[in-house]
């Protein structure tokens, strides 16, 4: 049961150590995509924490996330296979999609979404992988706030 506690607090730690390098590599892809948004007049502040796991082609998953009103948030999703097309969207506590800005990158295995939190509370991040690849993909989500 202790593992459940650790799992809630940081998904990446729930994985067996043997898989950690693969997960870290995917996290690096996501972090690298985030870099361009961490400067300028209103820079985002990137968190070190992340969510990770595995997703089947054609499937979607939800991540629960506590957001705070007046903050802007930016989420980056990455999978290792450059052919794996991913998408990320945000929903409020009632299941309504939150308006925001989607970003596309050089290859479709990275996607990001930025939005402002209209209310403080629990939100749901929906991540999905199209069936442009055959094999399940390791995924990582990192996020930043400002």
């Amino acid at each position, binding site marked *: *049961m*202790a593992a*459940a*506690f*650790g*799992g*809630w*607090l*940081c*998904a*990446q*730690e*729930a994985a067996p150590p043997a898989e*950690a390098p693969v997960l870290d590599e995917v996290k690096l892809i996501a972090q*690298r*995509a985030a*870099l361009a948004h961490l400067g300028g007049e209103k820079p985002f*502040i990137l*968190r*070190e*924490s*992340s*969510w990770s*796991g595995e997703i089947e082609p054609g*499937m*979607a*998953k*939800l*991540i*629960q*996330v*506590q957001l*705070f*009103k*007046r*903050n802007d948030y930016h989420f980056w999703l990455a999978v290792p296979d450059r052919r794996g*097309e991913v*998408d990320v969207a945000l*929903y409020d*506590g*009632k*299941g*309504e*999609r939150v308006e925001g800005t*989607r*970003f*596309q*990158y*050089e290859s479709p295995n990275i*996607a990001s979404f930025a939005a402002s939190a209209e*209310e*403080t*509370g*629990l939100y*749901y991040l*929906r991540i*999905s992988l*199209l069936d442009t690849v055959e094999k399940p993909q390791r995924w990582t989500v990192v*996020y930043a*706030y400002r």
Partner: protein
Amino acid sequence: MKRSLLSAFVLAAATAAYAQEAPARIDLNDPNLMVVDSSVIPIPLEIFSSLDKLGTQDWSRQVESREIRLDANRSRTAMLFGLVVSDGFIAVQAQDKEAVRRIGREVLRLATSLGVANSVEQHANAIVNAAGQGDWSICRKELDKTRQTVLNKMAELRDDELVGLVSLGGWLGGTQALAAVLKQNYSVEGSDLLNQPELVKQLKSDFSTLPDRAKRGKVFGQISQTLDHLESLMRTDASGAISKGKVIEISLSTANLVDAIYEI
């Protein structure tokens, strides 16, 4: 990373149409939804950032210098570690150089007691150095890295219960500071930052599943009671606010628990 490489990487970044339209609405009660069984605890600065948008707050009053007395109870040390990192975030917000330097040294001492000093030393030193130069951006980054490095290291060592307690301590410290600031400078708009019922519910549920060996000591009984109490307090009313009375109660409850963790 070199600038040219970075530019090349994000060249294609743009707001654009996307291949698969996400549905406009999802039924959160759909039993077929696959919800990731994990989450990330917000760090105090994330919350303080929102509050500061309503006007400058006096964070310096929340910077405390407490004597940390360690005992053989590693669970308590893990909670103290979380609390001290949280104090570090508060001191960064208050831009208190001396406090951040002191906290950087305490972080290393606690990490040593938890057996993860080697992984943390570089970050702790970076915190102390950056504080000396007043580089708050680096301090903030290194504090978050310290926290995450300890969590990763503990998970690697299969110390899962300690992972949870570090994060619980961090959340508690940040919530105490937030409630104290709101108590002094109450606003309806700011009060909604304490609207975290689902987070408290999850923390409470996870804490209750910890093995008994990780909950030895009188303070651990108080944690369950306090989380129960906070779950009922930390939710907005119909007007979208948390009343001043509730904010005061949250402040008292969290402060009492923090005091109990520091006491031997």
